[in-house]
């Protein structure tokens, strides 16, 4: 052993010199995955949005309470018929290549989101028909129909502005050298190793930028990610394993943060996606689905599966969300009632197969539900399927129940419309109801929050009774970071904002 230690001593010594060489003003962030393409129009991963938070400013942002706040747009005004949104663009903003960010650039970007081949933003901006440049700092977005979730869409990738000059020059390769207008500019990317950004001297809000450089490092294993933070190689990590949170409490060198996600964990049930729906009591009879929900003890589920790092829920938004429909509260576990419902439906011991992706969370969730539902008489078989496979099965309707999570969008519409609208892309349940469709359209057309909430309550009353999805809980985003790092803001979208972050000496 002593000899081996000597062997280690030389590199260790060299390493000890390393921190001196690296600038103290570098923020090192550990990510749970390697982001996909860094083009806001084409991007599709959650983790990519973490990097965009440092790289690309958006027209609007959200605050801690999910309220929409200005970023590149300083103000907005809806037309009386709600079919046009006029934005005031912040003056004096430039892209990282020095190009001006003005109304023409905003028009270019929204049109790029709408028309670029392979754009993932088309759905979010579907009702946008045309964009007019009113004056250099004013732009008007015209809609084919009133669309209240538009502002919320502009707080995410659809609201990110890239340099028109760079976008035109690079075409579909823009994502390899993104040019935006955020606090940091792109330096380099080595796939699966690092993404390096450096401070943009021309940033409009540069007083709030206290680092010279950010290095994002993807480290998929949560244990290794944490080890890197504890050894001082990283300053901040996202997605800490829930089982590690307790241990971190006692660590004075580290701080933790938890934010309830805007997404959800649910159980999607095939109620009409394919013929399979009618071949199984679970898909055929809403009473069987109600019995299944009543057999689940959500608090117990969260305790066992998530180490209590989740908020129980029964809707597409968490009970703490302003849009939560209070008319449909979380049902308590009630085995007697579940059994009675099954008896009433004529199937005291229904049997079905539940597809669960191979992630450990999904597998644990499936096993616990299986055990809980057994008390009510259910016989559940679990089919583990790798994510790509499970998605294919869901899309073909080749399943009876499917453990599926959604990362969430700031506006409830993003958690709802595509899942419960007839024939919508994410409607794996195959739920289709004319009345619900009407209400969904109404929720998009209504701008007044109080009125809109009433529409959501009506949707909740309908959809949650039919149960195409049984919503279970809302996970916590778990962060851990160097205790010297100040200014960490836990925003509900789970993305680290880098402005305002500061490392104490």
């Amino acid at each position, binding site marked *: 052993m002593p000899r081996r230690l000597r062997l280690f001593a030389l590199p260790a010594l060299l*390493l000890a010199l390393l921190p001196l060489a690296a600038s103290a003003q570098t923020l090192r962030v550990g990510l749970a995955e390697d982001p996909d393409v860094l083009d806001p129009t084409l991007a599709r991963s959650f983790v990519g949005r973490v990097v965009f938070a440092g790289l690309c400013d958006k027209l609007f942002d959200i605050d801690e309470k999910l309220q929409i706040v200005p970023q590149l747009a300083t103000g907005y005004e809806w037309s009386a018929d709600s079919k046009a949104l006029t934005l005031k663009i912040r003056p004096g903003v430039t892209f990282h290549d020095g190009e001006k960010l003005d109304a023409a650039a905003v028009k270019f970007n929204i049109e790029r989101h709408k028309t670029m081949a392979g754009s993932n933003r088309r759905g979010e901006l579907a009702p946008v028909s045309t964009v007019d440049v009113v004056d250099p700092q004013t732009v008007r977005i015209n809609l084919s129909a009133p669309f209240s979730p538009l502002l919320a869409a502009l707080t995410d990738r659809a609201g990110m502005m890239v340099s028109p000059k760079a976008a035109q020059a690079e075409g579909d390769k823009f994502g390899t050298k993104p040019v935006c207008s955020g606090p940091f500019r792109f330096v380099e990317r080595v796939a699966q190793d690092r993404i390096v950004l450096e401070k943009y001297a021309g940033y409009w809000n540069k007083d709030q930028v206290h680092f010279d450089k950010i290095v994002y490092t993807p480290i998929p294993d949560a244990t*290794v990610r944490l080890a890197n933070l504890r050894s001082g190689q990283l300053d901040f990590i996202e997605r800490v394993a829930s089982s590690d949170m307790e241990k971190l409490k006692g660590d004075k060198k580290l701080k933790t943060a938890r934010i309830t996600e805007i997404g959800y964990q649910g159980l999607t049930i095939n109620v009409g996606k394919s013929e399979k729906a009618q071949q199984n009591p679970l898909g055929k009879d809403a009473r069987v689905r109600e019995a299944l929900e009543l057999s689940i003890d959500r608090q117990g589920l969260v305790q066992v599966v998530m180490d209590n790092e989740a908020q129980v829920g029964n809707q597409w938004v968490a009970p703490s969300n302003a849009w939560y429909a209070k008319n449909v509260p979380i049902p308590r576990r009630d085995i007697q009632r579940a059994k009675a419902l099954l008896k009433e439906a004529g199937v005291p011991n229904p049997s079905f197969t539940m597809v669960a992706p191979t992630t450990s969370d999904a597998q644990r969730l499936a096993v616990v539900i299986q055990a809980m539902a057994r008390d009510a008489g259910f016989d559940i078989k679990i089919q583990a399927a790798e994510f790509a496979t499970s998605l294919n099965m869901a899309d073909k309707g080749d399943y009876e129940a499917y453990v599926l999570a959604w990362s969430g969008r700031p506006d409830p519409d993003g958690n709802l419309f595509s899942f419960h609208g007839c024939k919508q892309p994410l409607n794996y349940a195959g739920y289709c109801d004319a009345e619900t469709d009407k209400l969904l359209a109404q929720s998009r057309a209504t701008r007044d929050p109080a009125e809109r909430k009433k529409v959501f309550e009506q949707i909740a009353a309908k959809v949650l009774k039919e149960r195409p999805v049984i919503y279970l809980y809302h996970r916590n985003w778990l962060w851990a970071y160097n205790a010297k790092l100040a200014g960490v803001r836990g925003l509900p979208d789970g993305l680290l904002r880098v402005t305002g972050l500061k490392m104490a000496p």
Partner: protein
Amino acid sequence: MLGFLTRRLGAILPTLVLVSMLIFGLQQLLPGDPAKILAGEEQDPTVIAYLHQKLHLDEPLPVRYAYWIGGVLRGDLGESVRNQQPVLDLVLQKLPVTVELAILAMAVAVLVGVPAGIAAAVGRGTAWDAAANAFALWGLSTPNFWLGILLILLFSVQLGWLPASGYVSPFEDLGANLAAMVMPAFVLGNALAAVLMRHTRSAMLQVLSADYIRTARSKGLREAPVVLKHALRNALVPVVTLGALEFGTLLSGAVLTEQVFTIPGFGKLIVDAVFNRDYAVVQGVVLVTATTYIALNLVADLAYFALNPRLRG
């Protein structure tokens, strides 16, 4: 020698063609629509349709193979659909990293495994033998990721001597490069050292009981030249074969080690590509790996010639 070499080289081309077809065909058996994975959470049908067209997913299999192999012959391995980087760039970026890791791991394995095997064979039945066997059992039964995480916890978190993960190019900073590679090379080489030890031991035992060794001993040669010159040379033949094959395994099998130490190498590249259904990357990586395997086998065959005079006739 020349005839042998021509025969071997002649077999390489058809093997490669077959391998390329296999890679392509097997990949298509992966369940799930790659366009759906690439379309991300939104699952926008326009995006899915666009990706189908872009990746030629609706064309018959032979046509798609022709598109790919045509590109390969022109030196174009395609482009990662996930992050838009050319596959060739990715391969050239990652291959040296994994090759370095594999070489270092092989060095660990040879430096530990072969001497331990010799010691165990020569001192058969003694404490040396028992110790070497215990080491082999430990090496073979210790899971890579577990050992890796333990080492990180000890040397990075507790003692703070070595970086927990990451990679620095040796051309940038050799010290930092070695510091980052020490633990992964040890973890990866550990199991192989055990394998090499077992093989060296059994090969040595066999050779040591051969007639010519008895002759050498009866000539009055001292034990050291008998073991190291006469016996080891012949005993190394199977060990070299194994080493060459295992080197290929190290290249493709560094996956877990690379995951644990977040080394941006080949293993990580292919695992991520498979999960993301990034076909072009999977195909490119497997093709390069297969070619490397074939080349290594050729090298092993040539090494036999050097080691075993009987084959030279």
